[in-house]
């Protein structure tokens, strides 16, 4: 597809080469906060992986270090064996085209139309003046329209983004990321601003699309149950270090304690029991989580 650089020096790993590889990634903010403390991670093509962990564990920093919206302090990131961290500005922009990103608060440009928002995913492929006058190539427009159809928003193409509901906006966000023809997706809290039903629909759509296109995907997510329901691999981050890496089925109370800290995890796990006994322990928040 949109190969721009040579696929040289694929690091390590014989056999199934990883789509994405992080090596000893560190990030320290100027304030002194150490957000990432030596992260090693590999994600093969076609895998949907959830990144969980408490607030402030470094999840957002981690995915932003991959496309260098945040510059890592040290360590390396490879996409298909090509180093991202060593790229100059121009090459970095070309690299970013290959990595789609989806945001928590949708991050659509509110005053632009749905079509403009989706087409902004093609900005890396067109020149400044073409994009300024909104003269995108016909194939791009076609691609954008088909993606809007795919996410069920074709008739909304001319609406302004701020007229849409939360779920619809997130679908536009997904279309914007996919119109890039990415090889991998970074997804930051896709469901944090959505209601439980819409959350599940968005997660399902996201996973279907990743499977259709064989994308490596990292999803930052707070909702552990939702993650378990949809993904094949869960990585737990705590204080900038990976403390769990395995299938969702092995995510037991002990592991959750390692990731999040001490808490009576069994009460949230058996929502059924609490439904029978409403007077039982657990905060409202946990009850809500149980319902999802």
């Amino acid at each position, binding site marked *: 597809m949109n190969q721009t650089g040579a696929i040289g020096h694929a690091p390590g790993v014989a056999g199934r080469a990883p789509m994405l590889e992080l090596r000893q990634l560190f990030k320290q903010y100027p304030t002194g906060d150490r957000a990432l403390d030596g992260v090693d991670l590999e994600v093969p093509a076609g895998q949907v992986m959830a990144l969980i962990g408490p607030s402030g564990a470094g999840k957002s920093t981690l995915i932003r270090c991959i496309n260098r919206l945040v510059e890592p302090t040290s360590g390396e990131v490879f996409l298909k064996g090509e180093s991202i961290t060593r790229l100059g500005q121009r090459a970095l922009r070309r690299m*970013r*085209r290959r990595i789609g990103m989806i945001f928590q608060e949708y991050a659509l440009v509110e*005053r632009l139309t749905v079509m403009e928002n989706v087409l902004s995913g093609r900005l890396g492929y067109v020149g400044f003046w073409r994009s300024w006058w909104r003269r995108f190539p016909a194939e791009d427009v076609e691609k954008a329209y088909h993606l809007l159809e795919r996410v069920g928003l074709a008739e909304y193409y001319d609406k302004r983004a701020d007229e849409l509901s939360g779920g619809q906006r997130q679908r536009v966000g997904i279309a914007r990321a996919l119109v890039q023809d990415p090889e991998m997706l970074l997804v930051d809290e896709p469901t944090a601003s959505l209601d439980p039903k819409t959350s599940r629909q968005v997660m399902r759509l996201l996973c279907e699309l990743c499977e259709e296109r064989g994308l490596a995907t990292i999803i930052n997510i707070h909702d552990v149950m939702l993650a378990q329901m949809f993904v094949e691999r869960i990585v737990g981050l705590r204080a900038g270090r990976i403390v769990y890496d395995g299938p969702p089925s092995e995510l037991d109370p002990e592991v959750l304690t390692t990731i999040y800290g001490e808490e009576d995890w069994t009460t949230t796990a058996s929502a059924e029991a609490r439904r029978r006994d409403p007077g039982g322990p657990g905060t409202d928040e946990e009850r809500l989580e149980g319902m999802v």
Partner: protein
Amino acid sequence: MPLITRDDRMIWRRRATGRDLAVWAGWLVGTAIFVWSWQVISENTIWFFVSDSPRVAADIGSRMVPPAWDYLPALWKPLWDTINIATLGTLLALVMAVPVAFMAARNTTPSVLFLRPLALLIIVSSRSINSLIWALLLVAIAGPGVFAGIIAIALRSIGFVAKLLYEAIEEIDPLQVEAVRATGASEGQIISYAIVPQVMPAFAGISVFRWDINIRESTVLGLVGAGGIGLELQASLNVLAWPRVTVILLAIFATVLISEWVSARIRHAVI
């Protein structure tokens, strides 16, 4: 510690005792300064003129009516000049202010160490000099006339527009910018897709607001020879033609009223 317990009851006060005293002392000093200033002003005023002023005002007032309406047709051309000075001056200022604003805004400036201070300097120097003073200067440089007025208005407006615009740029939602940057867009494309749409309403509002102010400012520019209706005003004042002055003032009043109405309508339509 404004929360104290006395006789087992909690008492909350807005300030602790020390701060309370400080506030009272502040008021005392303020009052003393006021009284002192009053005294100074009083000593330097010739009270005879003040006591005479109602009579003089009444005298001038009586000479101002009836207005010399037959003078009105002679005012259309200078009024038209005034509106042109304001409009062209504003347009010129907008063209120059936009790049200055992008250089001054912390989140878009290409260089924090060099270009940003330069842009801030441009803004401050433009704002610190009144358009009347700019006009005085420009009349001396470029000669009297509309051209000097346009440039004076433009120079004064650059700072105003650039300052408000750069504040609007600094207040945009950074997430939208991040999202566009993540697609691989260049800096220019980020500006056109993520920043321009966000500051457009502010930009339109600022422009119309400044145009409205400039209509009022350009009415006086003629006093120093920079064209427009101010020229007529000065001429009439010089020969003590009070009925004409009335007509000119009414014409200015009507123009400002209309410009206020237009700018209110436009701002309403944009926001």
